[in-house]
């Protein structure tokens, strides 16, 4: 029989340490739905997704019950809608409404893929889609959007960077009566992964199969609890403990992923080994860093602790799953993490420190509330900085900023649910206008020449 201690440890993780599977995301290719009439194309999109994802929610709920593991979200990621717009023309917002209707029909929490990949330049459909993002996010509840504006191979598309500053601001303005939620559903990427199951950045890349199941795990609370049992240990032992814990968490993800894929008759894609926090007490990545010995997240030493954590999570998780992908690492979304919220409120965690942390975390500047009067070119410049970190380090970086329209320092936005709440953070507003207005493309770095 299985060891008693192991059994109790698993129960403890689920009951008291918030271990859960964050998301089961079904990726669906919509390439065969393209046609030259947008209404016909929308009809095909609706039919195809509702057919393939019809059993997603009930089957995943059944797995949750049978295995006793909480599975928080069921989501869908689709082919970047800019590709459909390229063929069909017309107003892309029609696709947004169709995807919302799909989400309502199949009962998923989010549907991602209102996206465009423009790292090297705009092709047909891309600009129309990007310009329509604010309206699309304002007239839907469960749709998520992402735009890839740079990569290590292609460099950074500065025209897209300039455009995205305005799009983020407009998205917030159109939803200003609802905590500017539009901007919280929009992420700007450099080196976007094509198989990421996490929102808001999930989309089904063009290199992906017809239909696939990707799973994202969670479990910051479990890691923190494991570290709290070794208060005097040296740092190598800390890393080892994170590795072992990440292994166990990921095994759970692998089990759910293979079960879901089997029952739905769809290939299993990847497990995303991410430590994804929630605003719930005891489910915070910042608290792991504090457990390692920092007074508060944001103190000097934070970047080093995060680097160790991110690396150990990958080392532990890799062996636990047959296929690893997505973002895989530690997320640092400010408004979604109780410890980060506290650190941002107290002023210990600043924008500059967050930027430094993104050079070693798995994503980027995530869920950060900025003053509503921040000029669009400053937002663009933040995107450019973040993309540069991703481009040079061959890693994914992302920007998800929420301009709090009509609010300034000291005030807060409250999104509720998993998106949490966050204080308006102080940012440097010295003007980068001339740099942003130059346009063009930052050349790909030497790191891109690997052949």
């Amino acid at each position: 029989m299985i060891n008693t201690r192991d059994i109790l440890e698993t129960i403890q993780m689920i009951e008291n340490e918030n271990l859960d599977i964050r998301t089961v995301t079904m990726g669906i290719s919509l390439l065969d739905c393209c046609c030259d009439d947008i209404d016909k194309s929308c009809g095909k999109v609706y039919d195809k997704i509702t057919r393939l994802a019809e059993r997603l929610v009930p089957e995943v709920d059944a797995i949750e019950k049978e295995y006793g593991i909480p599975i928080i979200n069921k989501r869908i990621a689709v082919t970047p809608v800019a590709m459909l717009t390229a063929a069909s023309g017309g107003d892309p917002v029609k696709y947004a409404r169709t995807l919302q209707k799909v989400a309502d029909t199949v009962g998923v929490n989010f549907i991602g893929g209102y996206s465009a990949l423009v790292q090297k330049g705009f092709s047909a459909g891309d600009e129309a889609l990007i310009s329509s993002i604010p309206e699309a996010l304002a007239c839907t509840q469960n749709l998520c959007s992402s735009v890839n504006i740079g990569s290590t191979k292609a460099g950074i598309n500065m025209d897209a960077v300039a455009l995205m500053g305005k799009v983020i601001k407009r998205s917030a303005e159109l939803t200003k009566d609802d905590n500017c939620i539009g901007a919280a559903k929009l992420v700007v990427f450099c080196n976007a992964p094509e198989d990421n199951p996490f929102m808001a950045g999930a989309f089904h890349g063009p290199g992906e199969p017809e239909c696939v199941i990707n799973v994202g795990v969670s479990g910051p609370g479990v890691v923190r609890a494991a570290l709290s049992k070794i208060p005097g240990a040296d740092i190598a032992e800390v890393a080892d403990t994170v590795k072992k814990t990440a292994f166990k968490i990921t095994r759970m993800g692998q089990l759910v992923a293979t079960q879901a894929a089997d029952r739905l008759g769809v290939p299993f894609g990847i497990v995303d080994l991410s430590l994804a926090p929630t605003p719930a007490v005891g489910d915070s990545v910042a608290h792991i860093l504090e457990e390692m010995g920092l007074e508060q997240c944001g103190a000097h030493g934070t970047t080093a602790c995060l680097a160790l954590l991110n690396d150990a999570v990958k080392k532990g998780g890799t062996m636990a799953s047959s296929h690893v992908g997505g973002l895989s690492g530690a997320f640092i979304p400010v408004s979604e993490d109780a410890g980060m919220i506290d650190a941002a409120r107290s002023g210990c965690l600043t924008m500059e420190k967050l930027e430094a942390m993104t050079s070693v975390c798995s994503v980027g500047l995530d869920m950060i509330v900025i003053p509503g009067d921040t000029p669009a070119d400053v937002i663009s410049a933040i995107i450019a900085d973040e993309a540069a970190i991703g481009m040079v380090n061959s890693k994914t970086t992302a920007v998800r900023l929420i301009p709090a329209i009509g609010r300034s320092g000291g005030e807060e936005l409250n999104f509720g649910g998993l998106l949490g709440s966050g204080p308006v953070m102080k940012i440097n507003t010295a003007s980068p206008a001339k740099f942003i207005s130059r346009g063009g493309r930052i050349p790909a770095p030497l790191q891109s020449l690997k052949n």
Partner: protein
Amino acid sequence: MRAVITVVGKDTVGILSGVSEVCAHNGINIIEVSQSILQELFCMIMLVDMEGATVTFSDFSDELKAMGREKNLQIHAMHEDVFNTMHHV
């Protein structure tokens, strides 16, 4: 399938018989039981076979949870695979 039932709580009369009774009337066979008492805290782990079960696993699990609430015990029933996957390489 096989499932692992864990019961943790203050030791009182009839815990084992209560859980066994729920298993019996649902046609669930108990394969193995281990129990220990750590500082008055009762801890029992049961391995059961669901092969001949007359209820679905989730109904069975709900019934155990309800009994747990009544007797002030934490009772969980989980698929055996969860533990095998997590703790065995």
